[in-house]
């Protein structure tokens, strides 16, 4: 238990006081780089658009209206649900979810493999996994495009080996976007799972085997539940940026793979942009992410108090 300091306050209270001051830089960063921009976005989303980009400081819900409601070409019909943007959102969620699943399926065995090497090889493997990420995301995504396009090395090798007789036509498909997202965010899945597996006590697996559980049963009933926090952290870290990604869908996907990130990006680019609409779309995206995180946090606290 906490030892009592002579003054009567327990030492843990003293440390808590220190801890508050230690958090100051964090609060500063969160304030300046998160809260202020979000407030700015929220404000822009309820202003009136200026035709050449920018905003007019006049309150308006036009952006949200445009997002959710279809009032016909001339804006005079009774409002119906506008499906254009909801479809893009739905596609994004679906794409991000699939990318997350793909990262999980590849990331878990990878993390497991690394965490079960000896200490020196672990460092080497972690380096191998993270080194590609020293290169800028844009450049990596462009190289992916060069790799998988019809004239690229992937198709060349497959054609040469006789496995296919015409190019795969990967570029501008959802699959290409999947590959791009997977490649962009895999380490965000591997690293948290690695951290969880590294802390995993392998005596638990032995205990399970000792109690008549085969390998798959042990995986399902012991390993996965115990490393679950790492799995969930990895999924969040991949899902959230995938949802708002615009490089992979822009460069690798076609018109049919258009995602929220690109939609928002377009609103702030050039004369065709619509800042309030972009801001509104960003706010809606953020709300979705918040809901996902809140549901997760709820589940965690319920678990902890159960």
């Amino acid at each position, binding site marked *: 238990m906490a030892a009592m300091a002579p003054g009567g306050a327990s030492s843990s209270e003293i440390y808590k006081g220190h801890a508050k001051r230690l958090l100051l830089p964090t609060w500063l960063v969160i304030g300046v780089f998160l809260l202020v921009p979000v407030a700015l976005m929220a404000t822009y989303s309820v202003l009136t658009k200026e035709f050449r980009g920018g905003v007019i400081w006049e309150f308006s819900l036009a952006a949200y209206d445009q997002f959710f409601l279809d009032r016909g070409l001339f804006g005079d019909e009774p409002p119906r649900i506008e499906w254009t943007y909801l479809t893009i959102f739905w596609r994004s969620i679906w794409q991000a979810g699939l990318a997350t699943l793909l990262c999980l399926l590849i990331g878990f065995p990878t993390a497991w493999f690394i965490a079960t090497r000896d200490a020196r090889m672990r460092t080497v493997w972690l380096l191998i996994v993270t080194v590609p990420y020293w290169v800028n995301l844009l450049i990596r995504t462009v190289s992916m495009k060069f790799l998988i396009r019809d004239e690229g090395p992937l198709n060349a090798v497959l054609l040469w080996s006789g496995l296919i007789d015409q190019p795969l036509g990967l570029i501008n498909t959802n699959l290409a976007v999947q590959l791009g997202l997977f490649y962009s965010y895999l380490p965000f899945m591997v690293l948290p799972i690695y951290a969880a597996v590294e802390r995993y*006590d392998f*005596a638990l697996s*032995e*205990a*399970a085997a000792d*109690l008549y559980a085969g390998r798959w*049963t042990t995986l399902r009933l012991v390993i996965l539940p115990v490393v679950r926090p790492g799995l969930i952290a990895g999924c969040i870290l991949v899902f959230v940026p995938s949802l708002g990604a615009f490089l992979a869908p822009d460069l690798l996907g076609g018109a049919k793979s258009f995602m929220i990130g690109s939609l928002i990006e377009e609103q702030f680019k050039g004369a065709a942009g619509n800042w309030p609409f972009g801001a509104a779309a960003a706010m809606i995206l953020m709300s979705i992410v918040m809901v996902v995180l809140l549901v997760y946090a709820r589940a965690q606290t319920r678990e902890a108090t159960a």
Partner: protein
Amino acid sequence: MTGTVINIDRVVKRFGTFTALHEVSLDIAENEFFTLLGPSGCGKTTLLRCIAGFEPVSGGQIRLHGEDIAPLPPFKRPVNTVFQHYALFPHMTVLENVMFGLQRLGWSVVDAEGRAKQALELVHLSQFLKRRPGQLSGGQQQRVALARALAPEPKVLLLDEPLSALDLKLRQAVRMELKQIQRETGIAFVFVTHDQEEALTMSDRIAVMSDGHVQQIGAPREIYEAPVNRFVADFIGETNLIEVPVLGIADGMAEVSLPGGRALRCPTPLNRAVGQGVLSLRPERIDLCPASEADLTVIATDQVYLGTDIQLKAQLAGGQEMTVRLQNAQATRLPERGAEVGLKLEAGAARLLSA
């Protein structure tokens, strides 16, 4: 005698070039409380892991009721383990932990729950069914681990230093309880410890190990009173080891020459005459006596008060240290520091071992 459950036949275990077990052979009988005793690193855990199936043996065989179990993976061996650090499943309740093995064996939830509750009752833990392991004390966790391993009624229960993580008071209480549970269930226990007191108080038989070799197998009394070599004599209990010239050996008795010149007859496991031997003298079988009757003469150097006993430290003429244990009731006639003291060796005090 009851039959043999586990027959360990010349088992060798190597880790790379290092040999952790050298042709270990021993039999464990049904209903037996069998202890593997030895210093840290002597291979106790390794032997247990070979029996459980976590380590393949490098040579020899382990038989369960006469059948080689080498082809069986751990989850097919009717053997359960109480792990040193318990290895309880942290995400399951106490009850779920104990039900785990039963459900893997195909028991229905209702039956498994009934049996699990019985097992938890046996270890006096019925009030914590819904808790998670993290919410229990070390002693309680140890009981959950025991109940979890007992519930499927294994042929053999393996326990790897299950008491080592508990504090002294609790450890002593749990010893007797563990022994009683073993008697009640009739399951053979293979109990690993480095604590000789634990081994002596709980076991039907003990195998003393060192450096991957079995040194001696026998009942506690046999191990203590008739150690076969210097290692066992030294490791089990306290002893004084003194090098002496051997005059002769016949029929399990040796004649040696004590420091100071007196001759002494004492038992020995040796059967061939050797020039030099080691005499093991148990400190509690040595008494003070007048110099004229003394087997050994020493100079008293120190006293340690132990409550029921008093430990007298002394030196032989050659400078060698000796320890004598005297009952506290006799404390009145304790010699002063530096005084010359006569020592009498009582029956069973001495045993000659090879040097």
